[in-house]
C-alpha cells in the first residue's frame, strides 16, 4: 500500500477536494434525473401517439356520421328493418313458405310444389327447387319479381321452363339469412350511392314497416279541477 494512501492523506483529500466530491454527487443526481425525465418523455410520447390514433379514429367516425346526416334516424331504422326482412338474422321455414306465396300472387305464376325441411334452423343459404305452372307472361312476370316480391331476397341459378305445357319443371330459388357483422373499427359512411341502392330496393319491395304505437297523454286529461282542502 502506498504511503500517501492512509487515513491522513484521505482526510487531507476530503479537506482539499470536497468541492470535487460535491460536484461528482451533483453530477450523479443529474444523471439520475435525466434518465427519469427521458423515461417519462418516452411514456408521454407513447401516450400522445395512442391519443392521436384514438382521435383519428373518433374523428373519422364523427365525420362519417356528420356526412350521413342527410338521412334521418327513422329513415335509417326503416331501411335496416327492410334489409333485415330481406336477409333475416336466422332462418325459418314459415318465412320461406310465405315468401313463395307472395311471389306467386305477385306474378300470377302458380307454384305447384316445393320441398322444404321443417327443421330449418340457423343461418346461411337455403335452396328450394320449385315446380310451377303459368303461361309465358306469368312466367316472365315471375322472373321479373321473384327477387323481392316475397319480402325476402331470393336469387335463382337454374330454370327449366316448358312453354308448350306452360309449366316450369324446375326453378331453383335461394333464400338467405345471416347475422349482421358489425365492424366496430370501421367508420361506415352513407353515400349517395347507398341512398340510391336503398331507394332501388324500396321501389321493388313491398314491406309494411311496423310503427311503434306511441301512446300520447292528452294534456286535457291533466286539466282537472283541484281543491286546496280535501275536507
Amino acid at each position: 500500500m502506498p504511503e500517501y494512501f492512509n487515513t491522513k492523506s484521505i482526510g487531507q483529500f476530503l479537506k482539499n477536494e470536497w468541492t470535487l466530491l460535491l460536484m461528482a454527487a451533483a453530477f450523479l443526481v443529474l444523471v439520475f434525473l435525466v434518465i427519469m425525465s427521458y423515461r417519462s418523455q418516452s411514456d408521454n410520447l407513447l401516450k400522445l401517439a395512442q391519443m392521436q390514433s384514438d382521435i383519428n379514429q373518433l374523428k373519422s367516425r364523427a365525420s362519417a356520421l356528420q356526412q350521413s346526416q342527410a338521412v334521418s334516424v327513422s329513415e335509417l331504422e326503416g331501411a335496416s328493418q327492410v334489409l333485415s326482412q330481406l336477409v333475416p338474422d336466422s332462418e325459418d321455414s314459415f318465412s320461406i313458405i310465405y315468401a313463395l306465396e307472395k311471389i306467386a300472387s305477385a306474378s300470377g305464376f302458380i307454384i305447384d310444389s316445393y320441398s322444404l325441411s321443417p327443421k330449418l334452423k340457423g343461418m346461411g343459404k337455403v335452396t328450394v327447387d320449385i315446380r310451377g305452372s303459368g303461361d309465358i307472361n306469368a312466367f316472365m312476370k315471375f322472373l321479373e319479381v321473384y327477387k323481392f316480391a316475397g319480402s325476402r331476397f331470393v336469387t335463382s341459378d337454374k330454370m327449366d321452363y316448358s312453354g308448350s305445357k306452360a309449366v316450369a319443371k324446375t326453378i331453383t330459388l335461394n333464400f338467405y339469412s345471416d347475422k349482421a357483422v358489425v365492424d366496430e373499427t370501421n367508420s361506415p359512411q352513407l353515400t349517395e350511392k347507398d341512398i340510391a341502392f336503398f331507394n332501388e330496393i324500396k321501389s321493388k319491395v313491398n314491406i309494411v314497416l311496423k310503427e311503434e304505437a306511441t301512446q300520447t297523454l292528452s294534456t286535457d286529461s291533466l286539466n282537472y279541477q283541484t281543491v286546496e282542502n280535501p275536507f
Partner: protein
Amino acid sequence: MTKRINLFKVRLHQDKNAKIFQLLKLGVTVAGIALFAVFSYINYRNIEINQNIRQLAAEKQNYLSYLMDNKNTEAQLRYFKSKQSQLLTYAKDDAHFLPYFKVLEEALKPASKSAALETVVIEKDRETSFDVSLADFNEVMAFLKYIESATFLDRFTNLVLSNVSLIQETNKDDKESVRNYKFTFKGSFKEIDAGIF
C-alpha cells in the same frame, strides 16, 4: 545512524494529484452543464407533450360526447351497411334470367303465329338449351332467317342447332294431319349487364 526524510517527494506527488483533480473538476463541470442542458430540453419537451396530451384529451372528450349523442344513428348505420354488403354478395348468386329469356322471346316474334318455346333451360353460367316448335313452313323460314341474323347470334358466345325434327300430329276435330317442326338449340349466352338486381 541519521534518519532522512525527503519532503519534496510528497509535495511532488500532491502537485500531480491536484492537477488530476483540477482536470476532473473541469470535466465534471462541462459534463454537468451538458447534462443540465439535456435535462432542461427533455423537461421542456415533456411540458409541451403534456400540453398536447391535455388538448387531445379535451378533443377526444368532444368527439366521444358527439358519438354518444349519435350512438343510435351509428348503430343503425353499421347494421344497414352490414346488411347491404350481405345483399350485394348474395346478389352475385343470381343468374338474371329475364333478359336472356327475353332474347329467346324476341326470336319468336318474326314467326309469331304458331311459334312456341317448347322448353328453355338456362343455367347460372348462362349455358342454355331450348326447343322451338313451329307449325307453318313459311314461319320456319322467317324464324331461321332471324336466328341466322347478327342481331340474334350476337347474343350468344356459341349456339348450335343440335336437332331438327318433324312431328306429324293428327288433329282430333277435323282429322287432318298437322306438321310440326321442332328445333333444338344448345349454346351459351353472352353476358347481359342487368345491373345488380
